């Protein structure tokens, strides 16, 4: 099969997210029912979900979800994992055979902790050590792809319509404090299991509707810091940008949003002096990380979700609120489907991030 970069398929997409501000458990069924409403925004070439707070019994360990094309790839990858990590538990991810989902790779899950000696020898902090291991597997072991690597969270994705993907992974057996979902209508690139959304690195995950015109500029900049884009899919680079700005540079998510969806110079010009300086600094310092083109994204992170539009708002985004829950989706109907009576419903402005976190 021709993969990302070898073929161009023109295209839309659907995104949805739910979070409980009180950290109450939300069954995976809810997010599946939400994304199901937007079936027509996808074309069956990819669907996926990210759940946070789903592995409380292993919350101190990194949960690797891995696709393998072959048993040999699994054996080679497991040798690598054994050299670098202590494996607390490993198993196939439970799935349900359904006619709508076919040609699945081997899908495994490992709960791991970095090997103490290896970690000490690397002189890296723990998260950087784990991230580098993920990049090594994904770029150096043919047929192995770690598509989820955070703690107490996990990504579930496949080729198919999202509602079928949810059934395939038996998401009604999971509960978490937040969920995101994606229905794919591939833009320029083919649908394959690794190319489905969400894209994740450590605890960050991204679902994205849109097409990024600045992809190559963003990618070249990120490669200077060791982020290797192996999929030629625009969403992959957004994941790395968020990881770089938030985890490595220590920017807040608001500041990260001000970099990737920076206001126009003409808008900055009209801001009060201090705000003007702040926005100018961020635009200049990270000029190559401005993301242009249409996008709406939901970023999942530990204890929170962020929804963000491109500054021109060329993709739709709606926020609904009901009691402790906040809903985010491409369409209002995807929210009404699971919560008909909302306290509040509104549309964020282009470039203005909506950040919701679980109360501590």
């Amino acid at each position, binding site marked *: 099969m021709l993969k990302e970069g070898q073929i161009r398929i023109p295209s839309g997409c659907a995104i949805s997210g739910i979070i409980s501000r009180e950290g109450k458990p939300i069954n995976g069924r809810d997010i599946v029912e939400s994304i199901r*409403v*937007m*079936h*027509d925004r996808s074309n069956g070439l990819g669907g996926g979900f990210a759940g946070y707070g789903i592995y409380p019994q292993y919350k101190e360990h990194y949960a690797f979800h891995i696709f393998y094309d072959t048993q040999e790839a699994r054996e080679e990858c497991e040798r690598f994992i054994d050299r670098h990590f202590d494996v607390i538990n490993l198993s196939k991810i439970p799935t349900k055979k359904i006619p709508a989902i076919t040609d699945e790779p081997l899908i495994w899950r490992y709960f791991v902790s970095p090997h103490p000696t290896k970690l000490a020898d690397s002189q890296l902090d723990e998260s950087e050590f784990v991230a580098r291991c993920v990049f090594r597997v994904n770029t150096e072991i043919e047929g192995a792809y770690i598509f989820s690597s955070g703690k107490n969270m996990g990504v579930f994705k496949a080729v198919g319509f999202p509602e079928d993907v949810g059934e395939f992974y038996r998401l009604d057996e999971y509960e978490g404090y937040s969920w995101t979902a994606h229905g794919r209508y591939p833009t320029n690139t083919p649908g394959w299991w690794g190319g489905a959304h969400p894209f994740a690195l450590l605890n960050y995950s991204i679902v994205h509707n849109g097409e990024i015109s600045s992809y190559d500029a963003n990618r070249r900049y990120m490669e200077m810091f060791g982020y290797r884009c192996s999929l030629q899919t625009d969403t992959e680079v957004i994941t790395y940008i968020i990881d770089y700005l938030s985890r490595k540079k220590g920017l807040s998510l608001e500041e990260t949003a001000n970099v990737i969806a920076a206001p126009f110079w*003409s*808008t900055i010009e*009209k801001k009060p002096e201090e705000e003007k300086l702040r926005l100018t600094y961020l635009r200049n310092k990270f000029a190559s990380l401005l993301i242009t083109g249409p996008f709406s994204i939901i970023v999942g992170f530990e204890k929170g979700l962020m929804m963000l539009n491109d500054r*021109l*708002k060329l993709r*739709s985004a*709606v926020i609904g609120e009901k009691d402790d829950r906040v809903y985010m989706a491409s*369409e*209002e*109907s*995807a929210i*009404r*489907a699971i919560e008909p009576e909302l306290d509040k*419903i509104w*549309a964020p*402005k*282009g470039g203005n991030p909506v950040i919701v976190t679980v109360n501590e």
Partner: protein
Amino acid sequence: MKIHACDYTDFRELNQAVGESADETVVIDRCVGQRYIGCGISGKEIQITGTPGNALGAYLDGGTIRLKGNAQDATGDTMNDGKILIDGNSGDAAGYAMRGGKIFIRGDAGYRAGIHMKAYEDKIPVLVIGGKAGSFLGEYQAGGVIIVLGLGAEKTPVGNFCGTGMHGGKIFIRCKRLPHDLPPQVKARRASAEDLSSIEGILSEFCKEFSVSKKELENEHFYLLTPDSANPYKQLYVTN
């Protein structure tokens, strides 16, 4: 005829049922995201509750669509005639490229309302927004009338970049202060008595449909935005 939208997960089947109904009035309840409702039809009244999907009343060619609830994106896309009444808010791009008929929105509209509206002879589309409009109101407007009433709004009820690329038609905004960033190709002035009399009928109709007091509209003046000349973009892109 009464249709429970929840019985139709596929929008094609729902729209077929609407189209094939011999009744003049079709009631659709519990709508959840079904697209293209009333697409291209004429001569019917469709009453909807719930949240219909994108492109409600696209290519509408007559008749009336009444929605109790919020509309999503691209309501009345390229509509030619008829009336769409939204007793709620609208998503982005309401009245996209409409060339006839009327869209009344009781609440707020999202980004790009009235983008690329056009007019030809007696075909003059009308878009009225009761509350606020998002950024890029009337982007590339080529004809027709857009009215923003700003009911309940504390500040100028339009977002940034209002009238960008406008080269025809009129935008009326009921407000104290003009938007701060009008493009140079758009000129603005206080609406005269004559300007206002041209929309008098539309305002009465809007007030009647949504039980808004006409008096309330009189306590604030209107500004009128029009393109600066017949060819305001001369030499902006090419020497012409």
